C-alpha cells in the first residue's frame, strides 16, 4: 500500500508595492520566470492566465527533471489567484496541491497571503521542502519588485 502525506502551510508577506504590481508578477509568464527562478532552465509550454486556463512548466535539462501541471480556478484581478496542480519528478507523480494567493492593500503596500494544501507521496520531495521553497520564492519577490520600481 502506497502512502500519501497530507500537508499544508500559510505564509504571509508584506511588500512595498501596490497589489496591482504584485499581481503583475504572477499574471505574465515573462515576469513570473524573472523572479520565481528556483530552477535555472524552467520554461512554460502553456501559460493561460485565466479561469479554467492551464499552466504547464518544467525544466527537462535537470536531473531529476521536475514538471508542473496546473489549472487556474479563480482569478480576481489584483486580489486573488486560486489554482490546483500536480507535480512530477522524471515523469512520476509525487504531489498535488490546491493553492490560493490573496493580495490586500496594507500599510501603503501589499499583504500577500499564500495558502496551500498538499498531498505528497513518500519520496525525496517532502512537504517541508515545499514550504522552504515557497518561502525562498516569496523572498525573491521583494527585491524583484524593487528592481521593477527602479525601472518604472
Amino acid at each position: 500500500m502506497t502512502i500519501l502525506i497530507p500537508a499544508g502551510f500559510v505564509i504571509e508577506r508584506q511588500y512595498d508595492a501596490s497589489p496591482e504590481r504584485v499581481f503583475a508578477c504572477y499574471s505574465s509568464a515573462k515576469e513570473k520566470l524573472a523572479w520565481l527562478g528556483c530552477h535555472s532552465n524552467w520554461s512554460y509550454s502553456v501559460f493561460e492566465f485565466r479561469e479554467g486556463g492551464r499552466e504547464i512548466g518544467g525544466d527537462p535539462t535537470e536531473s531529476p527533471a521536475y514538471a508542473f501541471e496546473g489549472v487556474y480556478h479563480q482569478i480576481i484581478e489584483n486580489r486573488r489567484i486560486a489554482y490546483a496542480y500536480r507535480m512530477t519528478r522524471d515523469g512520476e507523480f509525487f504531489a498535488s496541491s490546491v493553492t490560493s494567493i490573496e493580495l490586500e492593500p496594507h500599510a501603503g503596500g501589499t499583504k500577500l497571503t499564500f495558502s496551500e494544501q498538499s498531498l505528497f507521496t513518500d519520496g525525496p520531495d517532502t512537504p517541508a521542502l515545499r514550504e522552504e521553497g515557497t518561502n525562498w520564492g516569496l523572498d525573491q519577490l521583494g527585491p524583484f519588485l524593487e528592481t521593477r520600481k527602479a525601472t518604472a
Partner: protein
Amino acid sequence: MTATIHATFVVERAYDASPERVFFALSDPDARRRWFMDAEGFTSITYEPDFRVGAREFFQFGVGPMNREMTNVHHIHDIIPNERIVLSYAMGWVGEPPFSASLATFELIPEGPGTRLRFTEQGAYLNDEADHALMREHGWKQILERLASEIAGHPQAA
C-alpha cells in the same frame, strides 16, 4: 472581498467488496454516472468523464427545484488501479467564478474481505460561506452512501 477559507476533512466508509470492485465503481463511466450524477435533488445535464491521468472531466447539474445550473470540472492527477485516485475539482454556478477548488483523494485500503475507502478533501472555499466545508463533508457522506448502493445493486461487468 473575503478571504479564501482552506479546510480539510476525511470521510471513511467500509464496503463489503474487494478493492477491485470498489475501484471499478469509482472508475467505470456507467457506474460513475449512477452514483455521482443521478442523485436526489440533482438533474444530470452534461456528463463527460475521461478517467485518465492528466485528463479533464466536465459535469453539469441542475440543482434544486429551480434547476440552477452548476458545473464541476475535474482534473485527474494520479491513478493507481485498486489503490488510489487523486484529482482536483472546481465547482461553480454557470456564469460565475467557481466557489471552490479542491483536491479529492480516494484511498482503498483492504480490510478483511472488504475495503475501507478513505476520502480526503483539501478545499479552498472561495466565497463567503464559513460553513462550506461542513456542507461539503455532509455531501460526500451522502455520495459515499450512494457508492455503497451502487456496489450492492449492480454486479460488476465481466
